[in-house]
């Protein structure tokens, strides 16, 4: 007989929560055996490609497809006129608006889909796109949301200007909604009576998630069986199935949506795009599979921009620096259609988390959404709905207030943090923060970097600069962010009426291994690794014996997908709860086998033991077999469970970040000397994966803060449509990051986990930006807009007179 293992050895053998388990996904990815959408090749498959508008605003006078149709190998060219009889020339957006699938009389942004060519291969399709003749009549272009609200030019002629929109009254024909939270009059009174008020316009520029794999799909209509299979880059496969059913009329049981391996999402793959609709229609029409995969330029120009928020802020404080009120008015540029991916009741997402980590007694937020001649989207690029915007806003406002008060920005934060004993904390803008210990995290961070030492060095650098001894300035970027993730409670969170719960279904096999299926879908987060760890701890079977499967709507339970850091808070909770149902049944089986009462056995790592007699036990492996082998009175055979988890609240991860940056005043170049990131995501499931998420999120933050943008000229031309112009940092530009953590579990989550994937992005952007701004504080700079590319930094230095 084997030597009896200790409790600790048995725990380690499971590979459960808290261990740095290596990823099970990596074997196939490192050998080039991933299965991404563009790898899917079905018999007889055709290829689709779009004719797109070169203009940002124009009438479509005519479309002539004769020459394209005459090309050998072209099967069809679809236009809005072809889709109209099916009612598919427009489609509903996630934000309650509608969007043209193919141009219906006019175009509203450059790159808009005008016609869809279907051909035998992608080369013929591309040739045919060139042969489609479209006659346009140019219209005045509006790229500035403030000008759009003043303009006589009507962008959306399809909408009745006097009727309410999806989120209430519209004030102007280019206005979409007004969303107000908090107390307007009380906040304005606080501001009027305050010792000090700092005011600033903080613009968070338009950018794009730009995952390395673009969006695409393969639609395959089986006319014999009446079944539609849709493979695609979907962050929410079940929601896509429901949407496809609603707009196509195909019953949901006849639609199978499959998200295979996904090459990064970052929010880009949440929405439904015209390419999906056109591929489905083309497959229905032709009866063979149709593949559509956008190229990089199409991706950057058309599918899912992020941000584009003009945030006007006022923050008030006492002379001593105690914040008394916060006021924010945001003008949100939504482009030609409102296709923002937010829960229905939140047209500006969770922007009302903009009071941040601070105990601000009175606050008011208003957001006005505006149509312009830009691409639709407004997705949450590596953040929970609009949380990056909120965090950037408050962390810039704190810095501006520190300047106004002539105070150290670290100390200003410190005296305004929500205290540990205030949790659960009711914010002035309506959230209940679940848990936090901001002071501990902050002090740990400041100590780790020797904050006082850094400030002394910075002061010396300023002296040296003034004395002509150096041309480099030093910036210290500070950020303490609080995220709101894990959407969310069905009572206030839904998308298209679908409650934002999530799910897990577990089947234990007779020999003691298992498969668990979830409503989420990994895009690189390593779900197959970490969800198995949660289950290993919950059900006492080794993680290596548990397969995790996601992304096939025919097999996985219904869930709302992966974005907004919701997988761990929601599906992770469902996983733990389903595991507990397995355990509850296992307890009854164990009691039967051990011939004791149910209450007389208890769970111990990988087994049930008789209380007080640990030598009497049944392992979970034995119990699994018994579930299929024994006729147990009153207990059904088998060992399976399913859980649909509706979270009682959001989770609120937080963190303290510090960036030390040198800036060359003459070239505008930045050199990140040090970046310290402390994250508190509650209970940590796999520290290796958490660290990887933090590195990645910080690098995407560096990109956004230091150069990445979707820029337009006055004609509405996209100026950053390729990776030549759209900044993605390489290994050469990226520093090594120092990671650290504290652990403040979520009190309402079954395992105390809060989610982490997006924290480093939410906290990283203000931290990099604050470092740039801070470098020039001694020379009178209050605020300069992102992205801080070399040219803009050089210009800031020049405007401050630092070039002599």
């Amino acid at each position, binding site marked *: 007989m084997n030597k009896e293992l200790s409790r600790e050895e048995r725990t380690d053998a499971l590979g459960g929560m808290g261990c740095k388990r290596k990823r099970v996904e*990596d*074997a196939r990815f490192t050998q080039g055996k991933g299965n*991404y959408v563009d790898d899917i090749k079905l018999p007889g498959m055709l290829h689709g490609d779009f004719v797109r508008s070169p203009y940002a605003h124009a009438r479509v006078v005519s479309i002539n497809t004769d020459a394209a149709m005459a090309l050998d190998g072209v099967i069809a060219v679809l236009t809005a006129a072809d889709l109209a009889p099916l009612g598919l020339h427009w489609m509903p957006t996630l934000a309650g608006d509608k969007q043209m699938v193919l141009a219906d009389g006019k175009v509203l942004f450059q790159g808009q889909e005008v016609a869809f060519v279907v051909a035998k291969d992608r080369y013929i399709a591309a040739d045919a796109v060139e042969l489609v003749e479209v006659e346009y009549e140019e219209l005045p272009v509006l790229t500035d949301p403030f000008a759009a609200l003043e303009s006589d030019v009507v962008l959306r002629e399809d909408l009745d200007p006097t009727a309410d929109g999806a989120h209430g009254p519209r004030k102007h024909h280019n206005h979409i909604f007004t969303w107000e939270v908090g107390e307007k009059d009380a906040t304005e009174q606080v501001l009027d009576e305050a010792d000090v008020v700092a005011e600033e316009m903080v613009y968070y520029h338009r950018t794009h998630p730009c995952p390395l*794999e673009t969006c695409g799909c393969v639609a395959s209509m089986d006319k014999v069986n009446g079944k539609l299979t849709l493979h695609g880059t979907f962050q929410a496969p079940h929601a896509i199935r429901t949407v496809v059913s609603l707009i196509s009329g195909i019953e949901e049981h006849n639609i199978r949506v499959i998200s295979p391996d996904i090459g990064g999402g*970052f929010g880009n793959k949440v929405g439904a795009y015209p390419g999906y609709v056109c591929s489905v229609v083309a497959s229905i029409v032709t009866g063979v599979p149709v593949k559509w995969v956008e190229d990089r330029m199409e991706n950057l120009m058309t599918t899912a921009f992020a941000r584009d928020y003009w945030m006007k802020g006022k923050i008030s404080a006492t002379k001593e620096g105690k914040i008394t009120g916060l006021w924010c008015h945001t003008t949100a540029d939504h482009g030609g259609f409102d296709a923002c991916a937010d829960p229905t009741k939140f047209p500006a997402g969770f922007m009302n988390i903009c009071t941040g980590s601070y105990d601000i007694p009175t606050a008011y937020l208003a957001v006005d959404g505006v149509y312009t001649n830009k691409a639709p989207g407004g997705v949450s690029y590596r953040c929970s709905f609009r949380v990056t915007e909120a965090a950037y806003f408050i962390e810039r406002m704190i810095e501006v207030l520190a300047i106004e008060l002539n105070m150290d920005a670290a100390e200003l934060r410190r005296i305004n943090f929500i205290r540990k004993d205030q949790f659960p904390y009711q914010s002035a803008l309506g959230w209940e923060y679940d848990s936090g210990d901001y002071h501990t995290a902050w002090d740990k961070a400041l100590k780790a970097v020797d904050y006082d030492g850094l400030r002394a060095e910075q002061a010396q650098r300023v002296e040296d600069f003034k004395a002509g001894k150096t041309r480099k300035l030093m910036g210290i970027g500070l950020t303490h962010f609080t995220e709101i993730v894990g959407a969310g409670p069905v009572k206030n969170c839904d998308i298209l009426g679908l409650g934002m719960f999530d799910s897990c279904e577990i089947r234990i096999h007779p020999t003691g291994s298992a498969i668990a299926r979830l409503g989420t879908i990994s895009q690189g987060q390593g779900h197959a690794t970490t969800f198995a760890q949660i289950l290993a701890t919950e059900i006492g079977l080794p993680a290596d014996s548990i397969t995790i499967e996601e992304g096939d709507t025919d097999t996985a339970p219904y869930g709302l997908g992966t974005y907004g850091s919701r997988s761990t808070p929601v599906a992770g909770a469902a996983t733990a709860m389903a595991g507990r149902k397995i355990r509850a049944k296992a307890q009854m089986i164990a009691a039967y086998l051990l011939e004791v009462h149910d209450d007389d056995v208890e769970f111990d790592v990988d087994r049930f033991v008789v209380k007080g007699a640990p030598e009497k036990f049944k392992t979970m492996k034995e119990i699994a077999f018994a579930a299929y082998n024994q006729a147990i009175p009153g207990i059904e055979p088998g060992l399976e469970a399913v859980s649909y988890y509706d979270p009682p609240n959001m989770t609120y991860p937080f963190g303290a970040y510090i960036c030390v940056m040198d800036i060359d005043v003459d070239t505008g170049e930045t050199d990140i000397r040090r970046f310290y990131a402390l994250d508190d995501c509650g209970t940590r499931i796999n520290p290796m994966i958490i660290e*990887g998420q933090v*590195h990645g999120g910080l690098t995407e933050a560096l990109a956004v803060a230091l150069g990445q943008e979707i820029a337009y000229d006055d004609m509405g031309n996209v100026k950053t449509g390729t990776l030549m112009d759209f900044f993605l940092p*390489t290994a050469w530009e990226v520093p090594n990051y120092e990671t650290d953590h504290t652990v403040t579990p979520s009190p309402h989550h079954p395992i105390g986990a809060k989610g982490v994937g997006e924290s480093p992005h939410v906290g990283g952007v203000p931290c990099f930006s604050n470092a740039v701004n801070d470098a020039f504080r001694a020379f009178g700079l209050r605020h300069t807009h992102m992205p801080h590319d070399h040219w803009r930094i050089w210009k800031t230095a020049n405007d401050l007179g630092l070039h002599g």
Partner: protein
Amino acid sequence: MSNKKVFKLTVNGEEQEFLAEPRELLIHTLRERLGKTGPHIGCETSHCGACTVTLNGKSVKSCTVFVAQADGAEITTIEGLGNPDNLHVLQESFKEHHGLQCGFCTPGMITRASKLLEENPNPTEQEVRFGMAGNICRCTGYQNIVKSILAAAAEMNAAKEAAE
């Protein structure tokens, strides 16, 4: 089509002969004609490096090479670097050091790294960062990719020393 021509390639040691249009991009030849779907398409403008293969001993971005330019070439893709029973040191190292997340850049990244370590078997961290700057990763922030490559270099050098 009438303008198709016969081309020959040696891919991962296997000779291939086929008819194709000269304008066909090498990445499409590899992925769609020859079934080597390890290299991926991320940008089609030579920026991202997801399509990186080794062509006649050099790292090449196969999304901007016509098949006609590659006629007669020897090509190695990720599929030719190792196999399930005998992984390349870099494949092991990327797994060990969490050098990948979504996996989309990984084949190009590892293929490029294998060439880098041939060119410079003992690189510094800065040399790895510079030598890998043609390959973009959106997930990892590069820190663990650099770590994976440095660890693989150390392991390969130790194995070489032991063999000598």
